[in-house]
């Protein structure tokens, strides 16, 4: 009799493969989760405060209250992700016990460890992590992340950092793809990347796991921009529920993500969306207040 195997690498990575071409939306209440699902989100991220509020209010940002996460899980049929602090493996254990579908070990929350990330292979639930460059992406994969995303600069509504991070990761992959095999070890050392994962990436010509964009995406055109640059899907954080008409904007971003190569459709869905989130130019944020620099 065949035995079921759960929590395998294939089902972890496979779940992210099912999210591709989709939009994952930050939500803080069951009501927002319903709006996201009705707009066509392929998953929601349950959190206490959206990044724009974390940035404004300051203080320590932690895993959301389990009551809130359960309310959101009960409200929708699509996958529910939730954030744990970098290195806070007990928050991750709690999220796994609650039954969330993916954990984001996220720089948006205040890090719990300034040297170590969570050893994600220990968990049955899969993890997504942020990255700014290929070395960071492959270190997270080495720790067991089954999905990557750019960090961008969360809570700004400014897409520039997500573009920078996506171009860096994808550009570095193109660079190692064109290298001779004897050059891989040197570049692995240079990037601080696990050698075997770097070789696998060079041979595949892409990350071995699904790679989304996140951090600062606020409009349908932003989402399509990231898709055309070569990511597999997008996270939208503050961009939806900090805008004038969340339901309409959420639907438009979903449509632009599907039809990212069709400017006529992007033009059509971008009309009359009301006020976007107010935004904060990422360049004006002092380094110690940047979220993207968290993670090691």
């Amino acid at each position, binding site marked *: 009799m065949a035995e079921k195997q759960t929590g395998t690498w294939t089902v972890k990575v496979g779940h992210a493969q099912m999210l591709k071409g989709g939009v994952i939306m930050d939500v803080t209440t069951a009501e927002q989760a319903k709006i996201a699902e009705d707009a066509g*989100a392929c998953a929601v991220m349950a959190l206490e405060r959206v990044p724009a509020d974390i940035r404004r209010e300051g203080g320590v940002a932690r895993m959301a209250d389990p009551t809130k996460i359960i309310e959101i899980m009960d409200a929708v049929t699509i996958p529910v992700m939730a954030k744990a602090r970098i290195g806070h493996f007990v928050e991750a254990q709690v999220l796994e016990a609650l039954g969330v579908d993916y954990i984001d070990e996220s720089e948006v929350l205040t890090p719990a460890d300034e040297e170590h990330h969570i050893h994600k292979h220990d968990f049955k639930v899969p993890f997504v992590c942020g990255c700014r460059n290929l070395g960071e992406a492959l270190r997270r994969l080495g720790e067991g992340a089954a999905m990557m995303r750019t960090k961008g600069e969360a809570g700004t509504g400014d897409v520039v950092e997500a573009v920078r991070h996506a171009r860096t990761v994808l550009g570095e992959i193109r660079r190692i793809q064109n290298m001779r095999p004897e050059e891989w070890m040197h570049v692995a050392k240079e990037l601080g990347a696990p050698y075997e994962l770097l070789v696998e990436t060079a041979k595949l010509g892409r990350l071995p796991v699904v790679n989304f964009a996140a951090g600062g995406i606020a409009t349908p055109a932003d989402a399509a921009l990231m898709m055309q640059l070569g990511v597999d899907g997008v996270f939208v954080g503050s961009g939806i529920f900090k805008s004038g008409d969340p339901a309409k904007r959420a639907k438009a971003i979903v449509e632009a993500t599907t039809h990212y190569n069709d400017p006529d459709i992007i033009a059509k869905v971008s009309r009359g969306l009301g006020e976007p989130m107010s935004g904060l130019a990422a360049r004006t944020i002092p380094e110690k207040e940047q979220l993207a620099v968290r993670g090691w």
Partner: protein
Amino acid sequence: MKPETMKIGVLALQGAFIEHIKLLQDLGVAAVEIRKPTELADLDGLIIPGGESTTFGKLAVTFGMIEPLRALCAAGKPVWGTCAGMIFLAKEIGRAQPLLGVLDAKVKRNAFGRQVDSFEIDLMVPVLGAPPFHAIFIRAPLIESVGADVQVLARLDDGTIVAAQQANILVTAFHPELTRDSRFHRYFVEHVGKK
């Protein structure tokens, strides 16, 4: 029809469509991404991949794809739904969301639990021959009951129906596109929807 002369579309509104395209191309089939009704015109068959069925439904309604997709099914073209694709093809799922409603079966979404309950298992699929098929179930649905014209292709040990066929419509609750075993794709292009 030989695989080399076929053109199969893969619905690319959202989800794991690239994986199906690669496996079809390995069989010599011309495989294309489908996002608009006009792209359905000259297809010999269609795959509806895994992803989120609610997302497919919303986008299919917005972009006017529901009726053209139903027409393709009614025309006898081979159509295969994996996981979310199976949900989208079903007549009844016990909740309100846009469906094509062409498969005479009652399907239950997220039937095995949440992501931590996703699993892999070796499955007997008699139409594919004796070696078991390594089946990957991700937040998978199951088939609760089928109509008289639906043939069951595979069951779990406890009897749960996880693959079925109704004339030109093939459904699997699991993801053959996440494996390197192309037997299901070959079965689809060679045996489904033959007149």
